[in-house]
């Protein structure tokens, strides 16, 4: 049924979105992962074949490298932003606070009170898993 990432029954996630999550999982792992390991590190139970397709596509684009690991390949992200691009991105992020309005940040800075409030909220609502 789920032959393609754009038709994943576990979610309405598109191809690009799944590729982002695959890439995110590989970066988070910090070492090469087989498709099965990647599948377990992606939320929403994507089909194995969907994950394999996303990995192959990212490998063809040069975003990932792969090494043989038994019968399967293990994939790892290519550190593709060394040097100039990453430096320019850092400069962009470090530019005066005013300019950050262009770049919506995921989380703003916390005060010490905020930190205590967050820890209390997390304690009151532990994750289900």
């Amino acid at each position, binding site marked *: 049924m789920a032959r393609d990432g754009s038709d994943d029954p576990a979610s309405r996630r598109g191809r690009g979105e799944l590729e982002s*999550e695959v890439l995110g999982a590989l970066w988070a792992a910090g070492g090469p992962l087989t498709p099965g390991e990647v599948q377990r590190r992606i939320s929403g139970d994507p089909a194995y074949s969907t994950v394999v397709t996303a990995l192959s596509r990212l490998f063809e684009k040069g975003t990932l490298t792969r090494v043989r690991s038994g019968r399967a390949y293990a994939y790892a992200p290519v550190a593709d932003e060394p040097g100039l691009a990453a430096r320019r991105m850092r400069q962009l992020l470090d530019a005066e606070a005013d300019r950050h*309005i262009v770049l919506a940040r995921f989380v703003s800075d916390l005060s010490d*009170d905020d930190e205590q409030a967050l820890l209390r*909220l997390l304690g009151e609502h532990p994750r289900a898993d």
Partner: protein
Amino acid sequence: MYFAVHLPLLLPLAAVPALRALAPHLAPHRAAWMLAGAAVLLAAISTLALLVLVAMGVSEVPLLAVLGHYTPGGLPGVPGTAPLTACAAVAALAVGLSRTVRRAALHSRGLSDALSYGRGLADDRELVVLPDRSPLAYALPGRPGRIVVSSGMLHALDPAERRALLAHERAHLAGHHHVLLIAAELAAAANPLLHRLLPVLSYAVERSADEAAAAEVGDRTKAAHAVARAALAAHAGGGPHPAALHAGTGPVPQRVAALLAPPPARMPNTHTSRAVAVVVAGLLALGIGACVESVVDLHSAVETAQAAYGESD
């Protein structure tokens, strides 16, 4: 009815508190659009009102009367503007416009930096990972928009939280939230009385993206954890930040609490919030009406004066 020209100038004093009171009662994306739209509208009509005041003052200058073909000594029916008022209007207009132009230049530099960074990337992938241990996550506007996340942030989150983070940033890009923020910020540069709308708008924009993230992972608690853990990781990872030293509870715990509460669609549409909505709409309509009236009045006064000048010739 020349007092009408002062109304758009004072309107933010009533409209800003009303908008701030109304925003929490709306779905976050509606609140964001309302706040940005109202900020731009209020800035536009107060700027127009200043222009009318300046024109009223200028109309009393004898030389202009000669050049404009009307009787010197002011326009008929237009009350003499105190020189002080006219000067204050000129000063307010000049300061507002120069501030707006400077902020616009800054934002367009920021946007063009973002665009050129995006163009410098090899392909059109959505997620760009910075090999950096400090936890960072940004939505970078462009064609296509990119989500820039540090490897440190990806390490700090579990699979569902990573998915929530990506969905959150994607919602910023899809909703063009940077456009709303820039528009409102420019409005506040033109009229400083609108400044207090900015934190409310930025909160509404974040809440809107948080709701998109919760819908994507299908679990509000997981989305709440994503926001909380990302903020805690960034707090622990980054050095002390001057902006972090303020007292009281900031936007992040409020966002987490909102995600742990029932979804906003299920919030009751109270009488109070409907009443506040009517007040906001009424104030904005009043402002537009006052502005239109003073422009129309000034225009017809100039025409009358020119006609009288023509007859006296």
